[in-house]
């Protein structure tokens, strides 16, 4: 690493920000996750208006604040890892646009839905909320799967601009375009492809190979199911009587397929998307590094050599593997808890279990990736790690200070607002509340 870029503080701040960005994403999934799930379930809560209003009002006052975690996650990724931000957002253009349009529909759907008494109007927005919430969860899930598998990009500095050949080492030190998405053929010729292909490749089960292709789609579906479970658990917390029973029914019916898919996906990931598969077993550099015993250890982590199941198979430093297994264990505990508590009708137990499941599983994925952020399917030298994408020391210092001051304040008032709106919803309660001059959706 070149001396300009590795002062001591920077070495500490970069992994710290990997953890912080992961944490903000997890917070997003935990908070907006349940209102996405509730959103999906709105039309399924019942065909009557009041049941659907109960679902919407269960997240009415808080969904907007929850969604800010998404903005913050994006902002934190932008500030702390600008290279990743520009590579991902630019490369996955259409996928992000799909998420964006879905978020827009959801936001206005909540607000407009109850503004007119017309049943047709309300029905339209109920489905708009449901479908757009589902799209957000599914596309984000597929995106996560794709990131774990690796994306098809190369550093543009490795491409000879005249012949478009992929070179052994960087040829154009002044290139400003960062990364390019495309295919490398047998002759090492690079063919860039437009974002529309990039978008289709995200969903292509044969890309980069069948095993990895199925894995990334499994991640998407599993994510969608977990989000619905998380939403149903929140509905259990917020409702009583028949609506509580309906929410409980959602959890119990969805649990076997969700838990089953999660186990399959996790095992599938271990056996199919491991390190050597990802970087192609013939990649000599990787094999050399793996064979070189001295190279194992923190230096390898610093250089970004290990990832995915290597992190779990004690080929990386033991601490990383232990942390990974503990997180996976917590995830399993949460998944089991969801069913056990739901069966006993314990709403808070169910919701906290699904919270634990989300935390355990997502942090396990983050641990699996570390120190990679977005691997390239074309090999190590093209992949993004925390080290080669991070912001400067000054920026990270400013951001750390900002986070230390802001996050406790944010958590404090979020907790207060949740507390105010933690009452149970029912048709009687909604009527009562309107009489008191309170607003509801």
């Amino acid at each position, binding site marked *: 690493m070149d001396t*300009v*870029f590795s002062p001591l503080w920077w070495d500490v701040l970069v992994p710290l920000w990997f953890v912080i960005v992961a944490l903000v994403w997890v917070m997003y999934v935990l908070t907006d996750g349940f209102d996405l799930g509730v959103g999906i379930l709105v039309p399924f809560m019942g065909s009557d208006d009041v049941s659907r209003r109960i679902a919407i009002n269960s997240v*009415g006052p808080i*969904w907007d*604040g929850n969604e*800010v975690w998404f*903005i*913050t996650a*994006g*902002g934190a990724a*932008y*500030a*702390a890892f*600008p*290279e990743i931000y*520009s590579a991902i*957002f*630019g*490369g996955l253009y*259409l996928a992000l*646009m799909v998420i*964006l*349009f879905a*978020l827009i529909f959801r*936001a*206005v759907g909540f*607000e*407009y839905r*109850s*503004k007119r008494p017309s049943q047709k109007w309300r029905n339209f927005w109920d489905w708009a909320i449901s479908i757009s919430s589902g799209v957000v969860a599914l596309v984000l899930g597929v995106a996560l799967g794709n990131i774990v598998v690796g994306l098809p990009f190369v*550093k543009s*500095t490795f491409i000879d601009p005249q012949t478009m050949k992929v070179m052994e080492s*960087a040829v154009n030190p*002044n*290139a*400003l*375009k*960062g*990364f*390019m998405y495309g295919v490398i053929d047998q002759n090492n010729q690079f063919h*860039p492809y*437009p974002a529309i292909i990039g978008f289709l490749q995200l969903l292509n089960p044969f890309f980069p190979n069948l095993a990895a292709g199925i894995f990334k789609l499994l991640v998407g579906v599993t994510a969608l199911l977990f989000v619905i479970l998380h939403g149903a658990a929140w509905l259990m917390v917020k409702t009583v009587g028949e609506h509580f029973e309906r929410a409980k029914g959602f959890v119990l019916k969805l649990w076997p397929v969700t838990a089953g898919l999660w186990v399959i996906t996790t095992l599938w990931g271990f056996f199919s998307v491991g390190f050597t598969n990802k970087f192609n077993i013939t990649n000599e550099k990787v094999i050399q590094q793996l064979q070189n015993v001295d190279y194992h250890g923190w230096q390898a982590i610093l250089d970004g050599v290990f990832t995915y199941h290597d992190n779990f198979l004690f080929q990386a430093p033991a601490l990383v593997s232990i942390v990974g297994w503990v997180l996976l264990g917590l995830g399993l505990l949460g998944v089991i808890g969801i069913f056990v508590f739901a069966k006993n009708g314990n709403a808070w137990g169910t919701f906290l279990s699904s919270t634990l499941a989300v935390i355990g599983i997502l942090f396990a994925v983050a641990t699996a990736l570390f120190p990679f952020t977005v691997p390239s399917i074309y090999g190590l030298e093209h992949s993004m790690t925390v080290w080669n*994408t991070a*912001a*400067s020391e000054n*920026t990270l210092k400013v*951001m750390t200070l900002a986070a230390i001051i*802001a*996050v406790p304040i*944010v958590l404090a*008032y979020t907790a207060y607002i949740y507390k*105010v*709106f933690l009452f149970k919803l029912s048709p009687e309660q909604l009527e009562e509340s*309107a*009489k008191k*001059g*309170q*607003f*509801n*959706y």
Partner: protein
Amino acid sequence: MAGELVASISRLQFATTAYFHFLFVPLTLGISLFIAILMTTYLVTKKQIYREMARFWTKLFAINFAMGVATGITHEFEFGTNWAVYSRYVGDIFGAPLAIEALFAFFLESSFIGMLIFGWNRVNDIVMTLVAWAVAFGTNLSALWILLANGWMQHPGGAILKAGTWVGGIRAELYDFSQVTFSPVADVKFMHTITAGMIVASMFVLGISAYHLLRKQHVEFFKRSALAAAIFGMIASVSEVLIGDIHAHEVAKTQPSKLAAMEAVVESEKGAPILLAAWVTKNEQGQYEYAFKLPLPIPGVLSFLAYHNFSAEVPGLNDVQKAMEENFANAMKEHPELAQVIENNVKFNGEWPEFNPPVNVVYWAFHIMVYLAFLFVFIFTAAFYYAKKGVLHEKTWILKLALYSIPLPYIASLLGWATAEVGRQPWVVYPLTEVKHDADGNIIWGELFKTIPAMIEKGGQIVQTEVPGAFMGLTTYNAVTPTLTVAEVTLTFIGFLVIFTTLAVLDWWLIAKYAKKGPEMGEEKPQEAY
């Protein structure tokens, strides 16, 4: 060129989404403050009517806010999706204010907006007042960080150029954060924008009040609303004229091409007059000339407004083009090791770009905005005068004028952004510039750029040195995402246009519906939805 077309459509798309965003943001900025003041007044005076007013305006605010959020998220995406090269080159600096905005401001406003809408009669009125202040503070703080980011693009201080990122290229990194936060360009821009928000909100409240007063319904309620809006609007519009002047002065110092376009100055001139109307064309030699002009017959007014000196030279379009080319060529000659940066970031297809923005667009956007500002001062002052005398509800002409003027502050805001952003072209990041005058008031054309620190490779070693601000410049056409194709951007552009237009119409239709319905006075009645 496909690349050019992608950049052009991306620009159109960004402009469209930004404009839609700013159709909803200024009202949010102003009316959140207005509601907080109403609640405070209620707490102090204990008059129930102020609480009713706050509740009523909150309802309209909530409908407006949904669109503000929906259109706002778009931008955080677009910086990366459409302007990936930009995000790479300056993301180290530009990302921080965005992230800080989310952490400190957006959380605050978005978390408490739910409470402001749904908290009535659930928590006590003191808490509701604090909530209203939290929302007002959050929205305006949000504007501050966003405008610091935007202001930095106009005058990119506090950065250092560094070689050796993961792609082996060069990027700008944060060097001095205080130059980002205390940039005079950004700070005055912030004042200018939030004051514009207050004007939009005041006209909104005054206009809707006028609607009801013209129909003689809820007279007591809307007389008070109108008086409050008139006071709020009068203070805001008078301040805006003064702040606008300071803002233009900052532009004159840091963005000569924008100033030349704003005032349609063709040839640099000492003691320049101000033009009340003008149209500029380009002749066959590529030189700008007037198709017609109507100067105010007092010499030196423009020189004074721009540089606080009646005889100072004001930069003209033709000189700006020449001087920019010369300054850039010199910077490349002085620092051959960085010459590639200018080749990549500034030149397009190996040629110098047009360094001036589309003059007539900028000139008229700016001038219509200024003329509107004076109209606002008049409307609010007149409304205040009659409201204070207690006869506003009888003065049909001013009520009608206020009602039909509701769109005008919005238009003025949009024109202001056109001045700022079209006026910035061809740059997405303006090179770090400072216009300096010698003792005689002549511009020192050879030294347009400030110096910036840089870490560059010299003789195999990385050394810190100083280079001209020219190297911070990045033109829009070079900032676009390289993998984008015309088809994709066209698709999303049309998508945004259709969806935002539909939703905006729907939004205003709902706002109009609830505005016309008026407040539910007296005892709290059961409400079906709200």
